[in-house]
């Protein structure tokens, strides 16, 4: 987490000072971008969400308490923007055709791109396997997906995820449980051993 800006800068921001806002943007831009990118995993989408996040912060500046952490406040806004981007991406995917399970290929045709995973039967190529997993992951509801991304891929502590999402720790755990269950079910449907 970045060093917290001084209180005077935060007070000026809360009162609508554009220069103060730009100074905060310059200080936190990279950190917020990296956080969003960890969730949405597409640089272009992350940039859109970053602009949206700082715009929401500026719009909601009067509600910001300068005695609190700007970084934490900004991270929560950024998380919500990233979540909205995931929802928008999923809505766009509704128009695409549903994927059918990929037929397995004989082991002799298995790709040599990368080592096969320990639990994989070695019948899907590595590329197909990764593609199927990404597809299964993309089918998770956004609220579960964001938790699964941060917990399983980024391996962040549950408490940190709860703080970023603004939900209780128990909610994070239950969403992670549901996400894992749905992910396993989808991988099974796609013909991947779970």
């Amino acid at each position, binding site marked *: 987490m970045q060093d917290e800006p001084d209180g005077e800068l935060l007070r000026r921001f809360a009162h609508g000072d554009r220069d103060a806002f730009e100074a905060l943007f310059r200080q936190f831009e990279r950190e917020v971008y990296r956080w969003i990118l960890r969730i949405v995993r597409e640089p272009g989408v992350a940039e859109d969400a970053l602009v949206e996040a700082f715009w929401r912060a500026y719009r909601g500046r009067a509600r910001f308490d300068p005695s609190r952490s700007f970084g934490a406040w900004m991270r929560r806004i950024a998380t919500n923007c990233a979540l909205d981007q995931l929802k928008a991406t999923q809505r766009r995917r509704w128009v695409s055709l549903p994927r059918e399970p990929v037929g397995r290929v004989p082991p002799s045709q298995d790709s040599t791109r990368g080592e096969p995973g320990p639990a994989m039967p070695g019948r899907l190529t590595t590329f197909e396997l990764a593609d199927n997993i990404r597809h299964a992951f993309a089918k998770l509801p956004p609220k579960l997906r964001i938790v699964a991304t941060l917990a399983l*891929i980024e391996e962040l502590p549950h408490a940190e995820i709860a703080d970023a999402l603004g939900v209780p720790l128990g909610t994070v755990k239950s969403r992670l449980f549901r996400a894992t269950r749905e992910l396993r079910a989808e991988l099974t449907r796609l013909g991947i051993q779970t």
Partner: protein
Amino acid sequence: MTDDQLKEVLHRAFARPEPDDPGGDLWTQVAARCDEAPRWSYVDLGLFAGACAALALFPDWIWLLAYHL
């Protein structure tokens, strides 16, 4: 597949995205967005239309609306 194996499979499928920094200076976009006039969403318009319709049908509800505002 154990939880650890599931994590390993996910790590293989989801490489860390690059680049780590925004492609350009996004401040101009943020500043332009902040200067835009407030936009009404369909939800806002729907709520406004619903409130107007309700008040037209039940004028006494103005007190209820006033209480919530």
